[in-house]
Each structure stands twice: as C-alpha cells, then as structure tokens.
C-alpha cells in the first residue's frame, strides 16, 4: 500500500493542473482522427522538458489515458475512430448516435472507459512492485533476451507480415548502433555529422509517428471532411451509470480482456477492443442486437481499450522493456528526465513512480467527468480540415524535435526518418517494431557486452546465454511468438490469397 503515501502529491496545484490539462487536451487530441495516442504523447514530450520528472510524467500519462478514451467521441459522433483502439466502438456507438442516443453512447463509453481504466491502473499498482522484486533476479543475459523479445513480439504480432515486421525491428536495432561505441569509443555508421552523437530517441519518435501521418494527410489532397457530426441530445447521467452496472457482463468481459491483453507486449488497444467486443457478443443472450446500436458493444469495447493502458506499462516500469509503441514513447519521456525504469525504480524514485501511477488513477475519473462536457468541442475539433492538421503537426514536429537539444541535426534526422517511414509503411513495413528496436537496441547491446564479459571470465558465451531456466524460457517465448505469427499468417493466407481462391474454385468445379 506504499502508493497511498504519495497520493497527496497528485493534488498539489501544479500537478493537478497538469493532470487536468493533459486529460482535457488528450480528450480533444484523441477525438482527432489521425492523431493516435502514441503520436500525441510523442508530440507532447518536448513540452515536459521544463517540468519536474513527476510533473512531466503526469502530463504524458494523462494524455495517454484520455487520448484512448477521446477517440470514442469521433467514433460515436462521426463514425471515424479517433485511434485504432476505437474501431470496435464505432460498430454500435455510431448507430446509437444515429438513433438520437449520442449522449447515452458517449456517457456509457466514458463511464466504461473509466471503470476499465481504474481496474487496469490498480493492476499496475499491485503487479508492478511484485514483478519489480522478481526482476531483481534478472542478469545481463536475461535482459538481453528480454530486449530481443520486445522487438520480436512486436515485430511479429503488430505487423501484417512477420518478415517485414522483424525486418523493421532489425532496422531499428541497427539505427540504435549509429554513433560512438560505448566501450571502445569507435565510430559506427556515422555517415553524416547530424548523427555523430547517435540518433536521439525523442526526435526519432516524433518523426516516425508524426511525419507519416502528415504525409498521409497530404496524400488525401484538397478534400473536406464530409462526415456529419450527429447532434447530442440530453440524457440523464444517472441512467447511464445504472445501465453500465446492469450490463456487468459486458463490462467485466471488456475490463478483464483489456487487462490481460495489455500485459502481453506488442498487443495493443485495437485488438483489446475488438476481442472484447467479439467475446461479449458471443456470451450475450442479446447477441443479435450487436451492431444495431446495442449498449453492450460500446461498454465492452471502451472498457477494454482503457483497461489495457495500465497493464501495458507493467513491463516498462519493472523491466524497462516497453511493451507497446506508446510505452516506448513514455520510456523516452522518462529517460530525458533522468529516470531509468526497472527493478530499482521504486527504491530510487518512489515519489516519481507512485505520483505518476496515482495520477493515472485520478486521471481516469477526471476523464469520465470532463469527457462528457468536452465531447461536443472535441467532435468539432475532429472536423478540422486535413490541411490545417497537417501543417500544425508538421510545425509541432519541427519545433519539438529542435527543442530537445537545440540542434538542427535532430530536425534533419526527424524528417529523414519520418519520410522514410511513410514510404516503408506503404510497402508493409511497420513503425512500432522499428521504434522498439531503436529504444531496446542500446539495452540489448549493453547487456550483450556485459554478459559476454561475464561469460569470458566464467564459462563460454554459448553456455551463459543459452542455458538456465530463465534464458531458455525467454528464448522459447521469442521462438514461439515468431512461430505463432508465421502460422497465423500462413493460415489466413490460405483462405485469403487470390491464387488459393482460384484453386479452391477449380477444385470445386
């Protein structure tokens, strides 16, 4: 119950003000199609430089939580999910809004999000210290395999092609080696003065997440958003609370599904929402009503995608292995404040860690309260034309990446990586594993070198890295995640490729 000792820190005027700002800002940003939670957090990092570590993290944490929930506003009122996590919400939420129940759908979505989110953060509170103690048993070889696991799991599960996902991870790992080698001081891959000090993670994250989105907006050309914002009628909030608790099956399915999925590295909110929606539909006696504006669909999807937020930070805070792209961005935010997450985070910086986690808990409640009030404004912001949004994001990306070290080199790197990533994405490559590779690369290399030194002094490198129950477990998980993804890819291809469809037709005829 150590977290209770730091609860008061959330309510200092500055901290609470930042929490409010992050929550309301996040709700509006989240409602804007194309501004994903990861990108919103990446763009916000430069604004935290002048803040104390706990304050900066409060702002980032609040933005992360509320952008996920804010995406429901445009999903319900415009039929455009604010983020991939809100895809499942669109299915019933927008139909409800079309029937004149927009306020009810929004209320249900924010209440379910808050309940799921609180459960997820409580899981984070109670799991993290236990796992952090357990993580003390991790040596260099285990941390090396964990870093590799982080890249391979996201590379194989988060991408539509396993090979291209893993290749993206390799590109990220290579980018992480650019600069001077830590042990020998040797120059590695310095092909331009802008990268002589290595690739700074924050400008790289801004570039990799923001610039492809800017170019995607360019690709749409001179088009206006023709989605109609549905009007929001009044609906008593008390009825919405009653309805959420009456639909406890959908709420518990969503909350538990989201929490479990959040704990698995690489599996994001998009999957959490869709899996919870699907499970809730299968287990509901009213399954026929799903898709026709049924409240269970909204409750299951929204409770799941917010329940995922807290647990997705467990691997980051205990093992310093970000389990998702947004967690990777938050790791960047932690590192610039000199906070190194891991097993000793709660011993060295308990105030920062607990204030951050507690603020996420309070943020869930604030999000529920303010979500209902700012929904109308957020829906209007969601209609901002592409041209304005692209120019704003580009401007923020340029200024934000420059402000990291007052260096034009960082801006050059940001733009080059972002532009390159846009084109790579068009050919099936993915930004998430590349980012994970970039962030986990130094962790993997440092532990590999350290492990090799220990191995040379005690046993052989092979024996050190490939024996022992924990090493073998981690290697098994790495191999299993790749094998599973390959199997899933082959299985889905069997039924989806054009050639196979033709063959099947020929066989039938």
């Amino acid at each position, binding site marked *: 119950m150590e977290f209770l000792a730091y609860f008061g820190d959330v309510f200092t005027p500055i901290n609470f003000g930042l929490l409010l700002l992050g929550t309301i800002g996040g709700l509006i940003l989240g409602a804007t199609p194309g501004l994903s939670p990861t990108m919103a957090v990446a763009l916000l990092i430069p604004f935290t430089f002048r803040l104390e570590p706990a304050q900066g993290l409060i702002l980032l944490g609040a933005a992360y939580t509320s952008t996920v929930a804010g995406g429901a506003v445009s999903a319900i009122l415009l039929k455009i999910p604010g983020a991939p996590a809100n895809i499942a919400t669109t299915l019933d939420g927008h139909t409800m809004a079309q029937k004149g129940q927009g306020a009810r759908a929004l209320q249900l979505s924010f209440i379910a999000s808050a309940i799921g989110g609180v459960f997820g953060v409580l899981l984070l509170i109670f799991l993290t210290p236990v796992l952090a103690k357990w993580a003390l048993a991790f040596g260099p070889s285990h941390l090396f395999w964990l870093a590799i696991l982080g890249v391979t799991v996201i590379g194989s599960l988060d991408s539509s092609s396993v090979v291209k996902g*893993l*290749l993206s991870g390799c590109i990220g790992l*290579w980018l992480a080696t650019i600069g001077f080698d830590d042990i020998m001081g040797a120059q590695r891959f310095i092909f331009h003065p802008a990268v002589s000090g290595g690739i700074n993670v924050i400008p790289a994250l801004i570039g990799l997440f923001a610039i492809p989105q800017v170019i995607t907006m360019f690709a749409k050309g001179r088009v206006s958003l023709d989605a109609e914002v549905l009007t929001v009628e009044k609906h008593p909030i008390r009825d919405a609370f009653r309805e959420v608790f009456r639909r406890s099956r959908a709420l518990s399915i969503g909350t538990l599904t989201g929490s479990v999925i959040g704990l698995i590295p690489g599996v994001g909110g998009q999957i959490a929402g869709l899996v919870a929606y699907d499970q809730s539909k299968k287990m509901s006696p009213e399954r026929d009503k799903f898709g026709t504006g049924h409240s269970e669909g909204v409750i299951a999807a929204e409770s799941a995608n917010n329940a995922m937020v807290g647990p997705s930070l467990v691997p980051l805070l205990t093992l310093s292995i970000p389990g998702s792209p947004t967690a990777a961005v938050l790791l960047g935010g932690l590192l610039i404040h000199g906070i190194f997450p891991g097993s000793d985070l709660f011993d060295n910086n308990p105030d920062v860690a607990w204030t951050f986690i507690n603020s996420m808990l309070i943020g869930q409640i604030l999000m529920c309260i303010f979500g209902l009030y700012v929904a109308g404004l957020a829906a209007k912001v969601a209609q901002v034309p592409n041209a*304005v949004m692209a120019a704003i994001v580009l401007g923020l990306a*340029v200024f934000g990446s420059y402000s990291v070290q007052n260096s034009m080199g960082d801006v050059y790197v940001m733009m080059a990586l972002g532009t390159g990533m846009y084109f790579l994405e*068009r*050919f099936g490559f993915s930004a998430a594993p590349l980012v994970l590779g970039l962030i986990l690369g130094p962790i993997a290399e440092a532990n590999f070198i350290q492990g090799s030194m220990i191995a040379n002094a005690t046993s052989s490198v092979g024996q050190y890295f490939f024996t022992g129950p924990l090493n073998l477990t981690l290697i098994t998980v790495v191999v299993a995640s790749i094998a599973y993804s390959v199997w899933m890819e082959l299985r889905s291809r069997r039924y989806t490729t054009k050639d196979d469809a033709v063959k099947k037709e020929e066989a039938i005829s």
Partner: protein
Amino acid sequence: MTDLPRTQHIIASGVVAAVGVAVAFISYTQEPAAAFLFPRMISTVFVVLALWTFGKALMGRTKVGNGLDSRAMRNILPGLIVALVLVYWAAKGLGFYTATTIAFFILLSLYDPAPHSEVKSWIKRALITAGFLAVMYGLFAGLLNVFTPREIFF
C-alpha cells in the same frame, strides 16, 4: 497485383536490401571488431530478411503493402517538397518562425479545400497561420525558452 505496385515493391525492398548489405559489409570489415560485434549479429539477420523480402518482391509474391498510386504521389509531392525545404534549408536559412509561417501558409493554400477565388478563404488562412505562429512562439520561446538558431524573423 498490378505491375505498378510490383515494380514499386521491387524498388522498395531492393533499397532495404541494399542498406542491409551495406550495413553487413561495414560491420564485417570495420575495426575494432569488438565494437562491431553487436552490429554484426544484427546485420546478419537484417541482410537475410531483407534479401528474402527482395526475392519475394522479384517473384511477385509480395502480399502486404499497397504501394503508392500516381494520384497519391501527385498529392504528396507539393506538400513534401514544402516540408523538406522548410526542414533542410528554410528553418536555418530564413529563421524558424519566418520559415514556418511561410510553409504553414503554403501548405494551407495547397491543401485547404476552400475555393482559391474567394478573398474570405485567403483571410481565413492568414488568420489561422498567424494564430498558430503566435501560439508556437508563446509556447516555445516564451514558456519553454527554446532558442532558435536565428531571431524571430531573420
């Protein structure tokens, strides 16, 4: 799959494979070897996966990624050129705020669906640009004390 995406896939995976081969070559030829131990491991996997992808693209068996059609390329090109000029020349050459103001206004003019013939839409674009720059200046110069390479205007 039409021929255009197939050619695009070959070019894209060819570029990635070329980078992979270059990284592997540098990793295995540079000294001291100890400093390149980790890059050697990565580049080996990198080059194998990249060549596999390139081979699949050559055989026309790439299943993921839609490439770019000519309409999207035409739409992207003006905006991308403005962005690249802003970042690689104008931000330092003209000053951050001047360059961003010009780039912002050009981007709005290029992509805003409002008709170019109406004076009202030009005034709206100018006001949005001025508002955005005022916020940026307030945030970065005022609040965050970010010192740009040049002064506000030049």
